[in-house]
């Protein structure tokens, strides 16, 4: 029996989902639902926009206005929705490849505008849907089906990238620290501006297998022991931080929001509405 929360926020008739056993995406999807529940948002005033990839199949299971778009373009579609209807709470669910590779340009420009979108990256450090190729967040040195000798690319720190580009709320959560991740998503949605939450997921099927990370349970334990809070990380040396993932809220400082600024333009010319 699904819980009352699941009944309310998911399209249970569309389950089971397509994700592999042990995938972390279901946990992150639930986190988004709980955050929406906690904020008491009207479901018809919530739109979830997603791109292409494992992450982006979440939209179809979620019982709001849901738009499953083209690869990398979710943030651009979301920008149009938010401009056309500023009353709408617009949440983008995207993956590391979707958001930071093919869609990287849209990500940084949406940050720059500080448009009121909340982007949650289901970041599993791999292209899962196509079978395990290295992505912009595959740690340097780790393997993918197209990095058989180890990835020589540098990897993005997404909250740092978003902050540098102008986002007004940035944070990172993971699959193990659930209550904290829910809080971070809630705060991201509440921020009246562009928010990015990097949600570290687990992919035992491809990332885990290619890099000998063990079972899904092993990978969850890895998150338990290696995802450390920002406050703890502040007192750690460079060497101590190697191999660790820092979680928590990184930036939260308001700035003029894009659709508000546009509304001012309409007002200044005496436009109707």
């Amino acid at each position: 029996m699904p819980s009352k929360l699941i009944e309310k926020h998911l399209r249970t008739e569309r389950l089971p989902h397509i994700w592999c056993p042990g995938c972390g995406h279901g946990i992150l999807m639930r986190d988004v639902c709980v955050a929406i529940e906690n904020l008491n948002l009207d479901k018809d005033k919530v739109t979830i926009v997603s791109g292409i990839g494992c992450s982006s199949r979440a939209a179809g299971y979620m019982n709001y206005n849901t738009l499953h778009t083209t690869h990398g373009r979710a943030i651009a579609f979301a920008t149009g929705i938010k401009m056309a209807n500023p009353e709408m709470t617009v949440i983008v669910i995207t993956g590391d490849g979707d958001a930071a590779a093919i869609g990287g340009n849209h990500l940084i420009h949406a940050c720059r505008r500080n448009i009121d979108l909340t982007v949650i990256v289901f970041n599993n450090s791999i292209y899962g849907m196509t079978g395990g190729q290295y992505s912009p967040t595959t740690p340097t040195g780790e393997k993918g089906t197209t990095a058989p000798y180890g990835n020589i690319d540098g990897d993005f720190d997404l909250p740092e990238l978003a902050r540098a580009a102008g986002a007004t709320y940035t944070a990172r959560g993971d699959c193990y620290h659930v209550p904290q991740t829910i809080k971070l998503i809630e705060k991201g949605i509440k921020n009246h501006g562009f928010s990015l939450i990097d949600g570290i997921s687990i992919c035992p099927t491809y990332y885990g297998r290619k890099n000998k990370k063990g079972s899904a349970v092993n990978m969850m334990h890895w998150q338990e022991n290696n995802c450390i809070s920002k406050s703890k990380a502040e007192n750690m040396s460079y060497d101590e931080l190697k191999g660790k993932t820092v979680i928590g809220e990184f930036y939260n400082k308001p700035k003029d929001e894009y659709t508000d600024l546009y509304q001012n333009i309409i007002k200044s010319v005496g436009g109707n509405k």
Partner: protein
Amino acid sequence: MALDRSRFQLLQGNEACVEGALTAGMRFYSGYPITPSTEIAERSSVRLPYYGGKFIQMEDEISGIAAALGASVAGVKSMTATSGPGFSLKQENIGYAAIAEIPIVIVDVQRSGPSTGLPTSPSQGDVMQAKWGTHGDHPTIAISPTSVQSTYDEIIRAFNLSEKYRTPVIFLMDEVVGHMREGIELYPKEELEIIDRDEHMINGLPYAVGEREYVPKMPSFGKGRPYNITGLFHDSEGFPTNDNKIANDEELRLMKKIEANRDDIIKYESINADDCDTLIVCYGGTLRAVKGALEELESSNIKVGVLNPITIWPFPEEKLLDLSKKVKNILVVEHNYGQILIAVRRIAQCNADIHFLGKIDGTTISPQEIVEKIKEVNQNA
């Protein structure tokens, strides 16, 4: 009755495109600057706020169409404009609009290509891309205006068709029309038929159609029951499916919604077409030169007619087939290496001799060149 001067304005084709779009109800524009379409973005940025509408300059051509599609999903009539290279970049999301059935008008002010080509020179080289540019089988409506007045009139029709059939409509201008200035008449909305989308879903299903109907109703996000939109093949509820029968039915319905309504969508202009030996087939800004040639040929004994499709896709096949049985020669005049020529040959080559006058050097075809070609064709006959 005194002439209402406020109805008449001296406008460039690109400007008339924006004025017509606003009359049709456009309230969202997103795009990326590119010659020779930029004036459409510029005028939209000036004019939209007066109507409470929104303009946004996006970071690239792809997001230019994506944001417009997002706004359309939120219930706002949307447009994007571009030119050759940008039109190439927009193709994937044109396919998305086709399968997700999201109304949008995509303006392509054609310039010489391929690639960066001759950015400020006229061309009609995107005719086939308008039909086949995005991958997979998909329906296409493409409209090509012939003058500034025609741009104003036809962009309104483009919006109407897009809303009525829930489909992307490609507005295929060329540099000649886009940058030409003419005095035109603008109409108040009340004097026109403006089609707005019907938001009442059948049985609460966003992709269900009534009996013998092909077009589902389109509710806006945020105005009723939340539902799902996807670029995957989907069922009547809008959810992805791998069911081959549902996929087949959906694809057929997408194709048929245009095929079954060809009479409503197809539009052409003809001059002496039923009483000529040589029929010229042309479209867009080329019609201007062809009309000049007709004037020069008036005193000759060569009987020339014109068939000018305004709706390029679907092509007026029946009309051309019918005319081809009555003429000796068909001369296709277009600013490319022979694109509509392919369609004309396929339809008419069994009935008439097909000739071609094209240009790919970035200059325009002159009336004189057309006159000479007509004379040559009739000498050989």
